[in-house]
């Protein structure tokens, strides 16, 4: 069968489908089904397209862009501890990213002559806050639920998973957290390696 005939038949078939009468409910279902594959007004774990799926599959991720040029290196050189700003790390699942108020606890009085601090003070006066971009996360289909607190209690250093922050200005992904990375450490520490420890 020649290619043009196949195409014509397909086009005719498609037209027939579109023209077929649908009840109101079927129409609504059709709209829903179309949006299942990632249109804007609906949230779904589906990828928005083939390119997006390929990027996830090969682990290609853009470096996070932060809203403010905060430097970890400068602050850690002042003998600050990670927990000064990431306050939830010892008590709960999330370490937490500090907001404007945390920064201004010190910077209302300290280093007020620096241009960046002045820019921040101006932001606060305008009622704005930081929308930090996540640096480390897991792909959605990994179904990983990580808790910080048990790891801190087990005396795992922050740098084990996040690299030496004293060398970094803006945080970057320097440690590749794949499952082997987690499982090896769990084996060494004799922590549970049941799937449900992390995946649920």
């Amino acid at each position: 069968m020649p290619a043009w005939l196949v195409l014509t038949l397909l086009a005719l078939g498609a037209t027939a489908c579109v023209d077929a009468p649908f009840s109101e409910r079927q129409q609504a279902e059709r709209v829903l089904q179309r949006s299942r594959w990632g249109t804007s007004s609906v949230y779904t774990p589906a990828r928005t397209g083939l390119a997006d799926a390929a990027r996830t599959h090969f682990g290609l991720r853009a470096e996070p862009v932060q809203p403010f040029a905060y430097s970890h290196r400068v602050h850690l050189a002042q003998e600050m501890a990670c927990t000064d700003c990431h306050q939830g790390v010892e008590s709960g699942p999330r370490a937490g990213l500090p907001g404007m108020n945390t920064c201004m606890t010190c910077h209302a009085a300290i280093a007020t002559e620096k241009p960046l601090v002045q820019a921040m003070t101006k932001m606060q006066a305008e009622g704005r806050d930081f929308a930090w971009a996540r640096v480390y996360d897991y792909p959605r289909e990994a179904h990983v639920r990580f808790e910080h607190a048990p790891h801190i209690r087990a005396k795992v250093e922050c740098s084990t998973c996040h690299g030496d922050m004293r060398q970094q200005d803006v945080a970057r992904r320097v440690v590749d957290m794949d499952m082997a990375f987690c499982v090896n450490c769990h084996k060494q520490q004799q922590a549970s390696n049941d799937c449900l420890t992390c995946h649920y």
Partner: protein
Amino acid sequence: MAHRWGMVVDLDKCTGCEACVTACHAENNIPTAGAVEAGRGRAMHWLRVERYWEGDFPDVKVKFKPVMCQHCDNAPCEAVCPTYASHQTDEGLNAQVYNRCIGTRYCANACSYNVRFFNFFNPQWEKPLHLQLNPDVSVREVGVMEKCTFCVQRIKSGKTAAKADGRELQDGDIQPACVQSCPAGAIIFGDLNDPESRAARLTHSPRGTKLLEDEGTEPKVTYLQRQSWNEPDTQ
């Protein structure tokens, strides 16, 4: 001693209000299928309230029975899974590992209680409803099975909180969403290995029965009722 999580449902207290169903959906990011897909048997409810009518109107007696995964000791779903996605944890939970699941649906067919559900579609929520999804629970994608986990995220966070306070886990510290939301207090959750826990004591109640007990699945959910479910009402 390791925990062994179990549940007791007091049918004499249950009023069939379905608060547990709603709480379960909200806690565990369970999508709603919609009328058409539900008609095709694709509705997903990790916990459902079964309703039984006895007698003819107006002399009817209605009975309600909340049914969730029974977390069987001898679970038929586990034996049939080719990828070990369905397995028993050290704490007696019948776990479903979404990463391993390849969607054969053998487990749903093997399950005697019809409490395993297949994701026929990627779940979806109209924005901004996606902002109310529970971040402690994954959103399952198309092609995997899912089921009641006894709110394993709450079990984990309860343990974490107890350890952070430097104390032992108390009976009642951990409440799955259905237990927490039940206004009648009809659902009780606890450690069956702790003889002092409410759930362990009620498991041995003379009112207790288990669903499809004669199949030998050895469920960890006990149903309390003044009379046996199968016997006719003699009152």
